[in-house]
């Protein structure tokens, strides 16, 4: 058993609970023990940086200090938005040993925070446990699953130490180890629209359309994501996208724009490991992969 700290973030506690459910099961299977940070707070996301950058870094850094106070060496962060925000704040702490943020943190009893290693679950699964171990745990190989792995932006950019910022492969490798076929396409790290689907909807929906159309055209019958916001945009807005761009798609490619099942990557690994549909919260995604299930 290897122990890890765990920073869930707000999304997996509200609209993406199934991501957390499946993550915890997969981590348990490989032998990773997760301990949630006691009293963690919201990372502030991208919004806080747009209004007050120092406050944003301070508020995010509180979590890093708490993690170290609670004796965590590695911190698993499933949301790539949180991942980037915490990473950016930690870079600041590393570079500024005596500025106002540091002083204010110390004053509030929040020492340290610059040492804890920040990790996305994909990094932990791939680098600490490895493709071979995942493969050895597969009970139901995903036969017939043609998976487009979607990485999104914040995990590989700008801190691209996990994978390549434009041509990543680790999620594809994990999917292959589960018995699925990896679909290659050029937009693996193209923006999903982020918060734009909520703020400037026309632009946001167009970005989601570009991704879904490309994945479809390359032959994918399923999509996996590694970020609750990417998942939300592709999954929840898919019906709106089809309504808006369905005709355009039909005209351009002379076929119907069929909806794709969009799953959290841990749900797919969990299925291959033999966990039940309901345990993994797959009922909570908008387009369920019912036809694909029959194949395994």
């Amino acid at each position, binding site marked *: 058993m290897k122990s890890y700290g765990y920073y869930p973030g707000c999304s997996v506690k509200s609209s993406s609970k199934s991501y957390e459910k499946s993550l915890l099961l997969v981590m348990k299977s490989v032998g990773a023990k997760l301990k949630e940070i006691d009293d963690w707070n919201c990372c502030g996301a991208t919004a806080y940086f747009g209004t007050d950058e120092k*406050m944003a870094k301070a508020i995010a850094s509180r979590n890093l200090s708490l993690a170290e106070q609670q004796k965590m060496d590695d911190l698993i962060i499933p949301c790539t938005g949180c991942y980037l925000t915490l990473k950016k704040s930690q870079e600041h702490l590393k570079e500024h040993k005596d500025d106002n943020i540091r002083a204010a943190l110390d004053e509030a009893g929040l020492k340290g925070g610059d040492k804890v290693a920040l990790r996305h679950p994909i990094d932990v699964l791939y680098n600490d446990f490895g493709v071979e171990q995942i493969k050895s745990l597969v009970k139901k190989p995903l036969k017939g699953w043609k998976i487009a792995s979607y990485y999104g932006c914040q995990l590989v950019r700008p801190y691209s130490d996990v994978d390549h910022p434009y041509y990543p492969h680790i999620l594809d490798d994990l999917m292959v180890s589960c018995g699925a076929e990896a679909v290659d396409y050029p937009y693996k790290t193209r923006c999903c629209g982020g918060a734009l689907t909520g703020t400037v909807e026309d632009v946001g929906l167009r970005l989601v359309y570009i991704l879904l159309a490309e994945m479809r055209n390359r032959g994918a019958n399923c999509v996996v994501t590694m970020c609750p916001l990417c998942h939300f945009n592709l999954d929840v807005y898919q019906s709106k996208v089809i309504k808006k761009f369905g005709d355009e798609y039909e005209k351009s490619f002379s076929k119907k724009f069929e909806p794709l099942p969009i799953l959290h990557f841990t749900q797919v690994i969990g299925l291959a490991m033999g966990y039940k549909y309901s345990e993994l919260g797959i009922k909570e995604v908008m387009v369920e992969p019912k036809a694909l299930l029959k194949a395994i």
Partner: protein
Amino acid sequence: MEFARTVKYEAELNKSFYKEVVESSGCDKVLECIQCGTCSSTCPVSLYMDYTPRKLMAMIKAGFEEDALKSKTVWICSSCYSCTVMCPSQIKITDVMYALKRMAIEKGYYPKSMPTPVLAKEMNNIISKRGRNSEMYVASMMVLKTNPFGMFKMAPVGLALFKKRRLHIGMEKIKNTKQIKKLLSGLKKREAK
């Protein structure tokens, strides 16, 4: 027929605007822009912007303060960091966008129809007070404050989430809200000095 001048006279520019930008966090290399346009071509949303990122960099250098801060560009940026990774001059363009956002809010220049600043403010408020964000609350406040009729447009998404048991209405709160208060007020005091 009247002819309007669309280009500014030099006297109307703020020639020292770039200094303000350079001093912001992550913006120290902004003057090293070589106008290659890599940022604009790699940006997935540049085609929706009134000024592309490349143009914006030139405007900062030349002193087009008002135009830069009033532009919709910074609010359309989704901070995907593609430009930052690609820039041959290593300019952290995403951070420059963040700096311009903050300046636009500070100076009251942001376009009133853009919901993004409202969303940001609501989120900050709730996080400072409770330590946690509430997706539902923040999204509703944003729509109500910028375009109340937008609530009808939001309804189908809400309903779909509700059916899938993903609509989370509760408001979370951390135990030690006092610590966040102390942290933020302490930082504010130091920054004011």
